[in-house]
């Protein structure tokens, strides 16, 4: 099978399930064979998830994490897209801002933790700030590149039709750059989900990151730790799947074909 072949529907469901089953089986037998009494088996993790659900904190933690990501990612989008479009539109401005941004960009959001706590104290705001720092730069950079890559014929055609600069940006440049912006947004959402867990490990007392730390602090309860890890993975996957549906919208689909 190569990448050009159409996969049939049953194959698209069957193979992933088989791979997951194999993974869980390998995990189960590794635990059984090594005889470890510390690392949990899949069954224990399942019970761990049940216990977390039973304690009634799980939904609150999930909602808290999602809420923080929504606020931070939303803010990063609202601030980042116009800024990125503007910088892409005015390359001179971009040249001025670029060095500072390229220095700030590689700094891991985790490295901002001490500063975030000084600015915002321990709480929601610090966590949201950290997630924002993680999501903001990929969005801005994607917008700058997207705008820069719009063929100049599009701009000239737009001008010939008598569009004002604002109209040109909103009706020609933005739609043309949208596929690239969507890729940037998807990347940023992935990073935001990575950062929310790390941020919740230090700054707050709710959310999935806190759930990991809380389970770690409760003695030898690695079943709960692994349960929380799996939940984070599954929720991340769901977020990504939802976002991929955006790529199927007609106005951006052309960019992916």
């Amino acid at each position, binding site marked *: 099978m190569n990448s050009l072949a159409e996969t049939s529907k049953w194959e698209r469901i069957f193979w992933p399930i088989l791979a997951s089953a194999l993974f869980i089986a390998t995990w189960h037998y590794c635990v059984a064979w090594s005889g470890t*009494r*510390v690392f949990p088996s899949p069954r224990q993790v399942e019970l761990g998830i049940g216990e977390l659900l039973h304690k009634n904190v799980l939904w609150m933690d999930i909602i808290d994490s999602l809420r923080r990501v929504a606020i931070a990612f939303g803010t990063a989008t609202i601030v980042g897209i116009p800024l990125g479009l503007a910088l892409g539109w005015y390359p001179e401005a971009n040249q001025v801002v670029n060095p500072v941004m390229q220095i700030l960009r590689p700094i891991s959001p985790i490295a901002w933790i001490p500063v975030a*706590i*000084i600015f915002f*104290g*321990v709480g929601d705001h610090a966590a949201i700030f950290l997630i924002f720092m993680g999501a903001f730069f990929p969005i801005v950079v994607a917008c700058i590149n997207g705008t820069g890559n719009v063929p100049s014929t599009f701009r000239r055609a737009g001008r010939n039709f008598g569009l004002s600069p604002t109209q040109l940006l909103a009706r020609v440049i933005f739609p043309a750059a949208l596929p690239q912006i969507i890729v940037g947004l998807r990347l940023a959402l992935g990073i935001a989900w990575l950062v929310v867990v790390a941020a919740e490990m230090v700054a707050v*007392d709710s959310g999935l990151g806190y759930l990991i*730390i809380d389970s*770690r*602090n*409760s*003695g*030898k*309860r690695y079943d709960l730790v692994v349960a929380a890890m799996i939940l984070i993975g599954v929720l991340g996957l769901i977020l990504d799947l939802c976002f991929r549906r955006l790529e199927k919208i007609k106005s951006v689909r052309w960019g992916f074909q």
Partner: protein
Amino acid sequence: MSLKKKILISSVGWVVLISGLHAYMNVNWPAILNDYRPLAQRKITVAYIPVTCQLTCPVTDYISKVSEGGEIFMPRLFQGFPEIKEALISNRVQAAFIVAPLAIALAAQGVPIKVVYLGHRYGSAVVVRKDGPIKTFADLRGRTVAIPSRFSDERLLLFRAMKVWGLKPGDLKMVEMAPPDVSGALAAGAIDGFSMGEPFPSQAEMGGYGRILFQARDYWPDYMSCILVVRQDLIDKRPEVVQELVDGIARSGLWLDKGKTNREDAADFVGRFYYRQKPALLRWALTKPMDRVVYSPLAPRKPDFDMVRDLMIETGVLNKKIPFEDYADTRFSDGAISQTAWKYEAGIASAK
């Protein structure tokens, strides 16, 4: 030279350079060589964190190294209890100083460890902001207080005080923090107070932003917090090593309680070589006043532990009444009963 060759040579060169620098600067060679010794000569690793409750650990190591027949174990510095717990569970360290309730909880969860000795008595305090609104314990109602772990005597201490002041369990918001972080958090206003072992109360006092609300002994006579636990397999296979360790800790305890000179000396070498804290800070914690922390007698007593266990059950962090004998082994403290203080005096090391 072809491009392929260039890339290959520079990547290999880079890996060799980094590995060489790592081996030269970072690798703890004595610890690695120790793993290749025959079992009978192998030294055990003892985990500790930089608090004065565990001062006997570095003191024993230092004195045995400079004035006796050489070190008797390998001390290993950690920054918080979760890390120590994980190292202990996975047998990376064979003995550790941890808080008593954590030891009881781990034993109740089936981790094969035994309490063999105490680290100290007293030496914890509840600290609030110096210029803040909290004048009495009752003012802490609705405030955030940092504790080292949900399984800590510092947390239980708060509950004891809450009983006296008529506060209900939900009245205080307790957050778990690594001990070295609390002073900064208090100074920044991120927390309203903390219940921690020395030298962090002293650090807040010396820094001018913290005020001691009360000492542990005010609400808990004979208070104990950090204790020495040893893995069961070590007790079974090499009891003489455990005895040597407990003897050393006992001798250090007596040595520390001999007088101010010894404490000031300990503050100096422990601060410089072990805790990486300012000696002045440890000097403050150890001598202002002298009975802020006490290092003898350190034999584990059943009534103390029963009280801790019952308080843990009452505050919801333990679910079974595990008997003292299941998590403590008193034969080593009994064996150390006739130990005397080290003969070491400040200056001996340099004179030699």
